[in-house]
């Protein structure tokens, strides 16, 4: 009498043969592969609690090779989903337990019959030679049903994830979310020579990641430029200065300036910030612009004030019937000139206002030293230098002027690099609030000067060592062509539907299962994928608590109020107003 109980083992032997070698003895066996498998995925029956969602697991398998052999391999995969079920617990029983307030423990219902079925997405295979380095290759044959699934030892997993990192300047970024004991490294070489897109909703940990990356690059003395519209990075300045005493950490505020060959930028600025002009008015504006020399690198605000003077003078002349041909194209009337002058005044005062706002924001940090941004044409080395971090503080400036400033700055730095005259070393740019600089066309913000600059850097930067890290909390508002040039991604928590859709559309090999976890990430958890890593990984980014923002911590209104000291003027005012009230009380003549 044969018992069917033995059947499974018999079947296994007949399929697998005795020749299957164990991957590595200490790897725990955690389950058995189920009926149907494919190149992309498989499912397996999991031993209770032996693995969890997101874990990387290994299956023994065989792969046919190009030369007709069959080799034993390890197939690596990620657990995408676990479904636990107890077919012995019908819904009506659960309902009865609830309604009768009965504990299942007390009844004859079974407790031990939960089945966990895992779905695994294959990542690739490695050969099963202990001596060989672990590098992943694409599968060409599915794993076999009935095969064992193993839980790889941390050190083996770590070496798989970080293979080939040596010589690529690995930097430690954090640990696998599913396995905190596994360190994750990314290649600094790939990060600075290519481009990284960092997305996540507010508070998801973008700035923490930026700090991590910046810190590691600082260790490597790499020049860094941070474009910081909100001042998210000011908080680290003092601590970083202490941690890196030999580094220069520079805080810049912008000077709006342009180059000779970039009068277009000025034109755009005036066009966008000023009033809407008619054809003849534009003609006149053009005329003034060409007639007025601009010294590259000088303040644009000053230049605009010269333009105002010129157009006022021209109008004056017109009114005085003076008909010198140099006072305007054709027969421009004095009123046309007046309109242009008024528009220029508007631009002037707007820019002044933003400048002022930037100043008062800077004044909130009396302990920090801000310098005017040096002219990137003549003095790029003051911005980009070995062991220097330059932070450009843009708070107060609206997005168009910000875009102009950034466009001019990056364009110029990029030109220095592409000219190949070694005025500045390779450098890495971090662009916070990237949606302000590369708005998608659908945002109706076309004509932002920074779009074309960044597009150029994104496409050609690799050759010249001008890597970008774009940081945004609104990915769907980013320019698509720029995003398409990004080749590494840090994707933190995203709850917005449109942002999630953006991720699905932008990234190749993006899985719906992976998208599902986006809204549920905790702070600092995210997917790291692309060229900076060997495998897409769900990582808990390391939090550099020695670089925390104590200068501008999270808003804490409650303690703010508790520590609130009323100004002495206010106190007096209230005191006096009581006295006044008494006076008014006795005033019999006050009108009714």
């Amino acid at each position: 009498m044969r018992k069917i109980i033995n059947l499974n083992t018999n079947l296994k032997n007949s399929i697998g043969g005795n020749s299957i070698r164990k991957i590595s003895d200490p790897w725990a066996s955690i389950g058995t592969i189920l009926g149907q498998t494919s190149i992309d995925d498989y499912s397996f029956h999991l031993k209770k609690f032996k693995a969890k969602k997101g874990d990387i697991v290994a299956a023994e398998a065989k792969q046919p090779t190009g030369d007709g052999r069959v080799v034993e391999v390890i197939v690596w995969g990620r657990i995408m989903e676990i479904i636990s079920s107890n077919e012995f617990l019908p819904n009506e029983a659960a309902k009865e337990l609830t309604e009768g307030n009965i504990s299942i423990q007390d009844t004859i219902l079974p407790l031990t019959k939960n089945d966990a079925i895992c779905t695994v997405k294959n990542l690739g295979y490695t050969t099963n030679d202990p001596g060989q380095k672990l590098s992943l290759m694409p599968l060409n044959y599915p794993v076999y049903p009935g095969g064992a699934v193993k839980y790889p030892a941390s050190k083996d997993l770590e070496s798989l994830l970080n293979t080939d990192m040596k010589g690529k300047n690995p930097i430690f970024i954090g640990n696998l979310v599913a396995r905190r004991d596994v360190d994750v490294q990314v290649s600094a070489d790939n990060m600075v020579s290519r481009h990284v897109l960092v997305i996540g909703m507010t508070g998801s940990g973008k700035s923490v990641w930026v700090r991590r990356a910046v810190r590691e690059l600082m260790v490597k003395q790499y020049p860094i430029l941070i474009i910081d519209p909100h001042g998210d990075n000011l908080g680290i300045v003092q601590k970083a200065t202490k941690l890196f005493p030999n580094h220069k950490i520079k805080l810049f505020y912008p000077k709006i300036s342009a180059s000779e060959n970039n009068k277009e930028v000025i034109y755009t600025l005036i066009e966008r910030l000023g009033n809407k002009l008619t054809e003849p008015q534009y003609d006149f504006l053009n005329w003034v612009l060409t007639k007025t020399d601009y010294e590259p690198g000088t303040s644009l605000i000053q230049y605009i004030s010269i333009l105002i003077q010129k157009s006022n003078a021209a109008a004056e002349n017109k009114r005085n019937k003076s008909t010198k041909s140099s006072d305007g194209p054709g027969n421009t009337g004095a009123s046309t000139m007046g309109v242009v002058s008024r528009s220029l005044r508007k631009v002037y005062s707007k820019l002044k206002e933003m400048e002022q706002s930037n100043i008062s924001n800077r004044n909130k940090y009396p302990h920090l030293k801000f310098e005017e941004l040096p002219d990137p044409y003549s003095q790029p080395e003051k911005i980009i230098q070995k062991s220097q971090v330059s932070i450009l503080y843009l708070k107060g400036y609206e997005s168009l002027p910000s875009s102009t400033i950034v466009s001019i700055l990056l364009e110029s730095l990029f030109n220095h690099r592409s000219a190949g005259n070694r005025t500045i070393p390779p450098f890495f740019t971090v662009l916070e609030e990237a949606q302000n600089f590369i708005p998608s066309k659908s945002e109706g913000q076309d004509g932002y000067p920074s779009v074309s600059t960044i597009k150029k850097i994104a496409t050609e930067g690799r050759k010249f060592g001008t890597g970008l890290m774009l940081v945004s909390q609104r990915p769907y508002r980013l320019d698509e062509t720029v995003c398409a040039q990004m080749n590494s991604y840090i994707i933190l928590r995203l709850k917005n539907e449109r942002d999630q859709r953006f991720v699905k559309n932008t990234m190749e090999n993006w899985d719906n299962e992976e998208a599902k976890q986006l809204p549920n990430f905790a702070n600092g958890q995210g997917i790291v994928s692309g060229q900076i890593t060997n495998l897409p990984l769900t990582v808990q980014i390391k939090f550099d608590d020695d670089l925390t923002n104590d200068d501008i911590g999270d808003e804490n209104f409650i303690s703010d109020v508790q520590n609130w000291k009323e100004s002495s003027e206010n106190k007096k005012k209230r005191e006096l107003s009581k006295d006044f009230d008494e006076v008014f009380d006795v005033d019999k003549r006050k009108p009714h």
Partner: protein
Amino acid sequence: MQNINLKNKKKSSLFANFVNNVIHKPSPEVQKNFMDVSLKIAGTIKKICEDEKLIINIPYQGKNFWNKGKNYESCFVDGGVFSSVESSSAPFAIRSKSYIVKPTNPLTDREKFEETIAYMGDLYDSKNNIYDLSEDPYEDNQLLNKKKDAARIIFEIACLVKHVFDKQKFDFCFLHGPLQTPVMPFSGPEFPQFKKQVVKNILPFLNFDKKEEKINERHFINIYFQSIQFLLNSKFPIYGIVERTNSSVYLKNLLFRSFKKGKVAENDYNKMLSTMIRYKINDGNLFSLILSDCQALRPLEVDKQIPTRGLGGFSEWETQITSFPKIHVGYLKTNSHQAPIRVESLKKSKDLIKDYEYILASSKLLPNYGFPAGLDVVDKAAKIPAWLGRAAKSYYSKYYLDLAIESKNSKNISSALKMLQGGRVWRNRPKAGKVKK
């Protein structure tokens, strides 16, 4: 009559189903007439039951019950059969499982799923067969089905036997299905014996090795009889629970008892029986009308084995068939909308209320299904899933192929291959006798 609340009964889906099932496309008059008859019979039977004090109320206290119920150790038994979709294609697998649970034990020891006995093989083949067949009979499906049934019944009873044989100590033991099946249908001359190996393996108390074998000693009827006799030694109560029934064994016995006691006139008795037959009244549908939720009928001791005269006179099995022990049959209504479940036992229960309370509480865990949860569990566990069945089949077929290849007989090989391909024609069956192991 006034005791039957027609309004409520009419609402229940059970009643509607029952009406629909009994009469195809009933016209309104037919329906009404059927209802009238059913209710009249129900009213009368209820009176008899009350007179005999057969209706008992079983307390059900939910959480409070399980506070004491958790201390009992129970064993639930069921069998599972797999046979290929084509009913005449034979490789098949069969097993019985026990679900043994004692809620208060620590989790590691709280519940056990035992595969008490299992077998896979071929119903036909003389070499690897569950039955002893010398010839290749042109079997009809009816006989094949009987053989499958007999095999399942024996495997289930053998499971109970094993627990008694092993002197296991349960507070309760339940079988999914009747404790005794009428054996008459298996008494035909063509019905084969079980193989010695099979019987020896599954029914260890039957020691065939030591003694001279009698004719038909391994026949289903005999070993079933022996097994049931053996179960009478049990130190724990064993119940068979039947969820659906067309049987009218209780009704008939009840009427017969009253008739014998002189409480029902002979004329009335006969008329009632024939009305019941005409209207297809059975225990299930009638007691649905009489019992309320949590009510039970005290068991009656009934004889399930009634030899009938076949074409060729009484079967040779008559003596044994009539010596099967009587069996106690009761009903328990476990919810308001299902027919009562039938509860069978070989012996009179020592504490009827306690036992019924346990069965009721177990059924209340599945309030809609109204069947003991432990039996539902073991039913699912014992079922041989299609994949396992298929695996068994291909494993078995491959085993044949290996044997055939070993024999180097091309005819054997080709027929084994045919079998592997799934289709199976009896003419191509390998002559297993020629294949050496």
